């Protein structure tokens, strides 16, 4: 059936309104779209790593989650959900479960690229039938915008501040999607809430209904950390994709597929300019830094094109 956002939004929401996520935050859009990909008849067990999403959606005695939900700690969403999935398999053997239950873990980039990386790698390697969704906002936002290994080079964060000697974070962003592809699991995809959410929805559906482990890396801008005007959320995502800073691709059983190739690849400055975290780069003396970022974006993009057979 062809993708139709209007029809799909008529499905009952599994993630309710009234949660406390910020206006202009990408994460709730990611969550709502991923959960929309569940079949209405299926139940879900959802695990969330400590972070903005968890503290803003499940504050005792309230919850924004209509499915079963568990939060235990920061670094272990993958391990926790893997245990629940093992329980499902064990109880299914003795006829103690009814219907189909799907298992989904959400973590921010801090809980995924950094502190939760080991648990993620372990759960994926073990082959649990689950989806891990990283909502990547490129820093530890819940604690107040500290750099993570996902933070892009030269971004200004509270622990990689742009100063008179050091122009923000000095390292490039870790390429987690490629690392997860190297786990040789059935399904890995990089996506974002882009345009009418088709790319994100379809990848979520594939991830949830592909048997075995799946990983989604989803760009989820943060207005506080990235310092853009909240209504610009979707525009920021669009620019990340049109500049090839965040390419949309998937890896199905080891095969790389490019999902979107910009007709006119925009210069990376178009993406950096509306974001306060890169403001310090737009001075005469920092021109070289912008060139360096462009060069690395191009290098990674060209390599991806090769992997996807599009070069």
């Amino acid at each position, binding site marked *: 059936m062809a993708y139709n956002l209007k029809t799909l939004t008529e499905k009952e929401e599994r993630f309710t309104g009234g949660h406390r996520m910020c206006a202009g935050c990408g994460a709730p859009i990611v969550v709502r779209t991923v959960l929309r990909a569940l079949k209405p008849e299926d139940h879900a*067990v959802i695990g969330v790593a400590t972070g903005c999403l968890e503290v803003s959606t499940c*504050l005792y005695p309230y919850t924004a989650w209509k*499915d*079963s939900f568990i939060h235990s700690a920061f670094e272990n969403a993958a391990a*926790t959900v*893997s*245990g629940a999935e093992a329980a499902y398999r*064990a109880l299914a053997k003795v006829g103690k479960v009814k219907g189909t239950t799907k298992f989904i873990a959400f973590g921010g980039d801090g809980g995924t690229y950094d502190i939760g990386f080991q648990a993620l790698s372990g759960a994926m390697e*073990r082959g649990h039938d689950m989806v891990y969704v990283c909502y990547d906002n490129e820093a530890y936002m819940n604690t107040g915008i500290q750099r993570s290994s996902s933070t892009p080079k030269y971004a200004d964060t509270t622990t990689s501040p742009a100063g008179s000697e050091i122009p923000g974070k000095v390292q490039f962003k870790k390429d987690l999607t490629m690392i997860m592809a190297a786990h040789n699991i059935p399904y890995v995809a990089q996506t974002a809430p882009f345009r009418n959410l088709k790319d994100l929805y379809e990848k979520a559906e594939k991830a949830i209904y592909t048997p075995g482990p799946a990983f989604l890396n989803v760009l989820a801008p943060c207005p506080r950390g990235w310092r853009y005007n909240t209504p610009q959320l979707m525009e920021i995502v669009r620019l990340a994709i049109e500049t090839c800073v965040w390419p949309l691709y998937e890896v199905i059983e080891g095969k790389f597929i490019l999902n979107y190739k910009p007709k006119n690849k925009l210069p990376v400055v178009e993406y950096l300019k509306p974001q306060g975290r890169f403001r310090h780069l737009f001075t005469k003396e920092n021109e070289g830094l912008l060139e360096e970022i462009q060069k690395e974006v191009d290098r990674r993009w060209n390599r991806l094109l090769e992997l996807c057979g599009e070069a």
Partner: protein
Amino acid sequence: MAIKDKLSGNEAIAVAMRQIDPDVVAAFPITPSTEVPQYFSQFVANGQVHTEFVAVESEHSAMSACIGAEAAGARTMTATSSQGLALMWEMLYIAASLRLPIVMSVINRALSGPINIHNDHSDSMGARDSGWIQLYCENNQEAYDNLIQAIRIAEHKDVQLPVMVCYDGFITSHAVENIELIEDEKVKAFIGEYRPQHYLLDRDNPISMGPLDMPAYYFEHKRAQAEAMKNAKRVILEVAQEFEKLTGRKYGYFEEYKMEDAEVGIVIMNSTAGTAKFVVNELRKQGIKAGLIKLRVFRPFPFEELGKALSHLKAVAIMDKADSFSGAGGPLFTEVRSAMFDYAKDTKAVSYIYGLGGRDVRPDEIMSVYQDLLEIARTGQVKSTFNYLGVRE
């Protein structure tokens, strides 16, 4: 008819786990507990259990997966030692606060550093305030019996707390002893089916677990957790009574050995109690009124019962196989003496820290402790409250 066998402590625990047939076991290898998941995974491979065995990539993930599994509604077990338990630390508290009746064997081993694979109690003693029930075992039989009882205690509706069954690394875990096993079907009947009240896989009643809990509610939740631990005191005895009916083996909060008319005694845990009983027998042959208390239940702490049990002694030595580095005795000493303040004020108490990092504890050393106690009893004077036994000073 009970089954007579010869098993190591780890084998006995693995056999108990086979009989319990939990839904999920998630574990990671660490000496000296490694054999437990090793033996158990063979039972899985041979189809002798229906368990899903999750061979995780760390102990942190072991406890995290246990939490996920137990929260999902599965009877869940694991085993670890030392650094493994230390790596689980964060999750131990969360397992207890989520009121998940996970049962874990802790094969006691010294904590690093320096790294040491041998026995002391620094690992489980360090986890004493994590909200887990802690049962301690002198030998293989007790390890086996306690593990089976632990399931019932943990899952009781008035408790719903995780349980650690602690026994000594190598001394108990690897030494083969005679043991009486219970028939498989009797174990099955004793533990019963696991029927959690609220669980993630109950699709008709979805639940959110592990919320952010602010000052308006957090304290009430911790208070309820504390009440569950108090309830465990009653449930531990109820389960022990039922277990005695099944096996004839009697369990309580602690074992009193020749305490009735004793004038001096020691309080001790796990395998060294066996050595100490030998010393008590030797002293009794000389007409010396020596006794011993071996603590089985450290959490919940039997404050009143233990305090009263020491009230008729002239002097008692509380022996810790762990140091708390407070400069004021080990953890067992601190708590026992606190109980004595209310219930055994006239009994002199001294602390001995012994056997760290697997240092052998010989009968003559325990004999020297009793000699010290006899001197205190005779003079009424304590020369040294805080002592180390069997160490080169």
